[in-house]
């Protein structure tokens, strides 16, 4: 399963709420809320597509300014030729 580490930049004041909502999405783990309004999360999903979908969902949360990807590992799907999202999910 691909894993990624993302930074959610939030409108000032909305980071706590965003962290809470993000944590409720299956496949998203919130690892920290920084004082300057950034939320650190890890996304884990069955395919790169599902992962990108989750990131898009985060992006659409009220108050989210941007989602940026710091790290993306897809070693198991890459070997199955599934990094293009054509795997089962």
């Amino acid at each position, binding site marked *: *399963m*691909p*894993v*990624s*580490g*993302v*930074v959610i*930049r939030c409108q*000032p004041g909305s980071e706590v709420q965003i962290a809470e909502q993000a944590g409720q999405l299956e496949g998203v*783990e919130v*690892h*920290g809320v*920084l004082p*300057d*309004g*950034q939320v*650190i*999360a*890890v996304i*884990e999903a069955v395919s*790169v*597509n599902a*992962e*990108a*979908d989750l*990131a*898009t*969902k985060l*992006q*659409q949360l009220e108050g989210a*300014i*941007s*989602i*940026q*990807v*710091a*790290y*993306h*590992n*897809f*070693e198991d799907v*890459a*070997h199955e*030729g599934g*990094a*293009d*999202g*054509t795997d089962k999910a």
Partner: protein
Amino acid sequence: MELTRRDFLKASAAAAAFAAAGAPVLAPRIAEAADDKGIKWDKAPCRYCGVGCCVLVGVKNGKIVATKGDPAGPVNKGLNCIKGYFLSKALYGKDRLTHPLIRKGNKMVKASWDEALDLIASKYKEAIAKTGPDSVAIYGSGQWTVFEGYTAVKLFKGGIGTNNVEPNARLCMASAVVAFMNTFGSDEPMGCYDDLDLGDTFILWGANMAEAHPVLFSRLIDNKLKNPKVKIIDIATRRTRTTQMADDYIPMYPQGDLAALNGIAHVILRDKLYDEAFVAKHVSFKRGTENQPYGLKDKEAAGDKPENIDFAKYKELMKPFTPEWAEKLSGIPAAKIEELAKLYTDKSRKVNTLWTMGVNQHVRGVWVNNLIYNLHLLTGKIGKKGENPLSLTGQPSACGTAREVGTFAHRLPADMVVMNEAHRKKTAEIWKIDPAKISPKVGLHTIEMYRAIDRGELKCLWIQCTNPFQSIPNLSRYRKAAEARKAFIVVSEIYPTKSTEVADVILPSACWVEKEGMYGNTERRNQQWFKMVEPPGQAKEDTWQLIEFAKRLGLGHLFPYSQKGFYKEMWEEYRSFTIGTGKDLAPYETYFKVRGLRWPVKANGQETRWRYVDFDDPYVKPGEGLKFYKAPGNKASIWYRPYEPPAESPDKEYPFWYCTGRLLEHWHTATMTGRVPELKRAMPGATLEIHPEDAARLGIKNRDKVKVSSRRGSIILTAEINGRGKPEKGNVFTTFFDETKLINDLCIDAFDPISKEPDFKKCAVKIEKA
């Protein structure tokens, strides 16, 4: 507790995110131990957009298994945008092209490289012999590496003897290029991304930076969150994600930019808000040719004949362009125009203008670029740290390759042009060829290239690294011509596309880190990378394909590089064009370690962040201050450019403005970001954004199917009301990434008479419930 590989990976992911967010101490401790066992990391620029983010690519067992934002990369400081996810997918789609294919009737059949290249060479030779070198062409892109673009230019301009070399960049920033040349005498910006961190006032003209240049927009937002003085003004025809973060959103009619910018200049002149000393020292005034055609007829002649005028004459010409006049044409209230003029001239503010396709893809795109520079030149707000106009670019090497190498029908490397004898001579010397070999005749520009196929004049076309049979305007005319086999078409690609559909030969290409390369981004930064993995099957680099073809034409001698030193030798040859021009590049090895360098690179190996200024640019002596040393008499040009209407405007029959653009998650025609299943997921196919009041009037509800028609074609799209983009009343918007919806069928192929760049942002359509 036993930690699994997954725990390690998650810890690494979290650690990278904490570090990039500026809080490395909070990272989980186990990440240090994990450190991606068995993964070998190397640097490369991102494959996608013109921002040129620095990426680390992780390889294990010959495959890419991970990517990271490069913490050492000054562009993006460890963070990629959402398209970063698709770096994993660019290379590993199941339908990668892996062997050459040749058309046999309606079928494409497998062939060897020799068969394919022999066939291409024989077709080109035949056309050249029968109808001359100007009956063949190559069409590349701003995704070509420097090496690929350079090989194409040298082969076609210096070998075959035709200037029929074009990049798809003609469709995206040709207007910006002309304005750089006719204003400053040299292409590419004086400022750089640092201005986004240092400035405090950012005025965006028709640019949805949040989606098209996300990492730069994040830099802007970081600046804004730290500095309460920062203001972002979004002037546009559609509310977007960018609007959400702007301090002020100013809706504008399509084409209204010409009027609004003139209105602002009028106020600056009327109230004497300009910087008199700056203007006297650094500026000259010009007027160009007005009332030129829109290129709707084939082979329509047009051009710009500048006339010198003086400041007094300019002021007089600008008198009619009052804020009230501007309001009528732009829809921006006169009071707002006055306000913008105050903002542009506020001495306590560092003002930057940012723009991209809204300004460039415009039938008067060169003019709008000129009008933006006018404001900065009148106010002297240019050539300062944190205060510059910055033209943003779409493709990863539109600047480094298409513009700097000169893969346009009129250009040669380093700002030179084929029409200039001295330039041809210098080029021929470096290429060690007879100057007579380089034709002084400008080649076919993009739209004319495809029209020439339809007219039966262009016999052979080789397309690399782009997908014109989806992306050009008034598409169906050109698709029909290709389907009628009016020309022999070769397509070098990595996946099947709308262009491979019409090809006679399809060649499988190596992509991104399957080859060595160099890209140059929007801020003059050249970034080199090494080959990290093998291309699949028989796929080969585009340079190899072109050089093997050259050998078959008897032109192999143009590429005398050794196998081992191939890239270095070609780079050093190319670099010699730049030395002493103010565009100086560094020796090849210099780029191995650094995360790119912005040219001109100084003798001491340091980069230049700001051009034309004595505090940074080595071509300006200490004490000289600002010097536009590439412009005639060291003076930049302020242009008188009036308002002229678009090629087509809404009327009774076609009452809506039709505008096209891109989305955050997809890039261009989505051949790399949209490998099929994606389209059915979070972001489905292209939709038609429409204003809720317009929709209500037409009885259209969200997600209804609607039929959109222009004079050129129609298409069924799903209506999107109050989605992420909200066009102003009377406007509709759609995106061009979806290959199942050829939205460009509807676009008019009108273009700017000076830059020949088509207007994808304005034509008239009607909307019906489907």
